[in-house]
């Protein structure tokens, strides 16, 4: 028997491009129950599901999809929640095309798109939130040991939740006034509504995790105090310090890091200025440098703030672009222009120190570099000028130094990130574990969560053996 599977994913309704560029509401609107079931029926329920291997937390994908088929959405949610504390978030922001969906066998059939695993995950999570609400899993009996989690990003939240379920007393220390990490201050409302992050935080709090905001470890309290008070520590402080290219004119008015624009808009809600007090600049002609997720978010944010024209410049070509495909397509639909093989070399300003233009040079791709990607090299004499009153650099972030400077014993790798054993997330300091962007450099939400899970398991082992050796 030949099964016939629709070639395309069941489409998801979206706000039309012309409408959404004027608001910060979510772009993708989610599946209805019928659409979800239709999409679930595209899944072959493989005996050896390759998709699961592609997921960093190994969600039982065919397992939850089977329940979606049967319209038992509650059960589907239960399956997912066993592996993933934050499905509503992952379903929205995972780069599925490189992870679960990249491995799906349907996607390997001629002319077929993979099963829309991410969309289904999102549907199930949203359905649960709407119909069931907060449902707490069984917790182990309370244990006496205390664990500190530093940084309330997806990695820290996951680690804290897993440890709380195991009965540990867990305290999260977060530098900002709101927990969530990049989910709150980086990824925009139109891709990930903040209400969803807050909902997931409710769940973590309901598990008994204490979240202490406004605490910068290394300043407000020292690493030493944490080590003295807690039996184990997870460090998940991310890599949020913006880098600048450092070309002439970087300090002109109108040149920003993507981090600044996104923090103002997302964490501080500057898009609602003056109802919220924090302002943000609106440019007419905006240049965004870089082509990762951060660059897409910055470009689409600038557009929504009212820019007439937004141009992304990237020194490599479309093939090398690191952004999620879906978001690139959204950006194209919204009218954002892309200048490939282009590198800014100088910002040009007027007498008041305001940006007026960006001088760029054309690039071509040369020999492959260490990353295996072809290295861009400047084409001499190809300089040209793009008019711009705003430029946003999104060329990558590095580790934030405050905690690391207060913790000199901690071993770092040559890029300045924390060195860990990838099997356990253990650092060189006993009882101290780390994961997420502060270990890998900028990566993904689900990878940070995967690390949080591994660390929780290791911490549980470490603390159990400590108890056992004390008893002896």
């Amino acid at each position: 028997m030949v099964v016939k599977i629709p070639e395309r994913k069941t489409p998801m309704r979206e706000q039309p491009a012309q409408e959404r560029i004027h608001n910060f509401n979510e772009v993708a609107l989610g599946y209805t129950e019928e659409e979800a079931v239709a999409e679930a029926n595209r899944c072959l329920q493989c005996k050896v599901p390759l998709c699961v291997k592609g997921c960093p937390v190994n969600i039982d994908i065919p397992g939850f999809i089977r329940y979606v088929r049967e319209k038992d959405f509650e059960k589907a949610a239960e399956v997912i929640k066993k592996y993933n504390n934050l499905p509503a978030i992952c379903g929205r922001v995972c780069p599925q095309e490189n992870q679960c969906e990249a491995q799906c066998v349907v996607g390997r059939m001629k002319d077929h798109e993979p099963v829309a695993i991410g969309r289904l995950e999102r549907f199930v999570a949203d359905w649960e939130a709407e119909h069931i609400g907060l449902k707490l899993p069984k917790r182990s009996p309370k244990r006496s040991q205390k664990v500190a989690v530093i940084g309330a990003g997806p990695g820290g939240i996951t680690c804290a939740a897993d440890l709380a379920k195991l009965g540990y007393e867990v305290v999260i220390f977060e530098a900002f006034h709101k927990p969530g990490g990049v989910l709150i201050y980086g990824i925009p409302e139109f891709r990930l509504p903040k209400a969803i992050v807050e909902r997931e935080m409710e769940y973590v709090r309901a598990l008994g995790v204490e979240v202490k905001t406004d605490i910068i470890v290394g300043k407000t309290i020292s690493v030493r105090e944490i080590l003295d008070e807690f039996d184990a520590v997870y460090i998940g402080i991310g890599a949020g310090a913006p880098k600048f290219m450092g070309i002439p004119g970087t300090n002109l008015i109108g040149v920003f890091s993507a981090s600044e624009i996104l923090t103002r808009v997302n964490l501080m809600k500057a898009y609602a200025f003056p109802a919220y007090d924090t302002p943000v600049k609106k440019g007419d002609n905006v240049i965004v440098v870089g082509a990762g997720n951060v660059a897409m978010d910055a470009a689409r944010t600038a557009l929504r703030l009212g820019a007439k024209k937004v141009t992304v410049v990237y020194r490599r070509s479309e093939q090398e672009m690191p952004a999620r495909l879906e978001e690139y397509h959204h950006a194209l639909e919204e009218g954002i222009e892309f200048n490939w093989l282009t590198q800014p070399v100088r910002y040009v300003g007027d007498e008041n120190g305001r940006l007026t233009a960006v001088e760029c040079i054309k690039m071509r791709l040369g020999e492959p570099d260490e990353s295996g990607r072809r290295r861009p090299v400047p084409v001499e004499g190809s300089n040209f000028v793009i008019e711009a009153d705003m430029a946003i650099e999104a060329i990558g972030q590095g580790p934030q130094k405050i905690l690391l400077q207060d913790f000199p014993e901690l071993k770092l790798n040559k890029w300045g990130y924390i060195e860990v054993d990838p099997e356990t997330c253990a650092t060189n300091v006993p009882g101290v574990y780390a994961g997420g962007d502060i270990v890998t450099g900028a990566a993904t939400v689900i990878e940070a969560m995967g690390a949080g899970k591994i660390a929780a398991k290791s911490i549980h082992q470490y603390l159990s053996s400590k108890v056992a050796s004390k008893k002896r």
Partner: protein
Amino acid sequence: MYRILKRQRLAEGTYDFWIEAPEVAQHTRPGQFLVVRVHDRGERIPLTIADAQDDKVRIVVKAVGKTTYELCSRKKGDELADVVGPLGRPSEIDRFGRVLLVGGGVGIAAIYPIARELKRVGNHVTVILGGRTAEQVIMRDEFGFADRVLITTDDGSLGIKGVVTDAMKQVLDSDEVDVAWAIGPTIMMKFCALLARERDLKIWTSLNPIMVDGTGMCGACRVSVDGKIKFACVDGPEFDGRFVDWDELLKRLTIYREEEQKSLQRYLEKVGDMTWL
């Protein structure tokens, strides 16, 4: 929540607060600042920590825009949404010999803990306090520990008639000074730094660019020092003023001028008369 334990008016539009913030209070050192968010829709603004005792920190705030107006109208017993700190690198305190500290306006509150600490470790401390009028020379009776105090006012209502650099010249002409600090309005720090450069004197200035997070995560606070880009919140806020690009800093302070005016106007329309502040 962070409770206001004490509030006192020091001069027109300038208020002295003690705020309950145990962790910040216990860890702060002279030269550091904190970030305040007055309420849930508020902006994060940086303010120097003027003093700390037990569980409380002291800040001195001048009302210049929406957020500082709002903060200054908060009463004893009110709570602030967020107080984060201590931020920035502490001042470099050592036994230098003879030191000079120049404070202008609310900058007087910023030099106060530094001067006191420099005295405590055994320096000879000269302080210059400047203001537009006598009233603006805040906290002047708190500098009794200093070896020498000079006061300048623009209108001559107290001390030397003139600006702080006039007093600074007087001191430098007659005295050996090993290292100096100048904290106050940017333009004042610029002229103090120019004078120090002429006299080959190291002068710490506490830069006050616009900030968002205060922890090195946004780059809003970047300044040029000796031709290099620095983040004032983590690399500073104190830098040797002789090497600071002052004109760039002055320009960067105007980035949000239109928005600041709009915000303040909207606020004043809502609350009405604020001239009492």
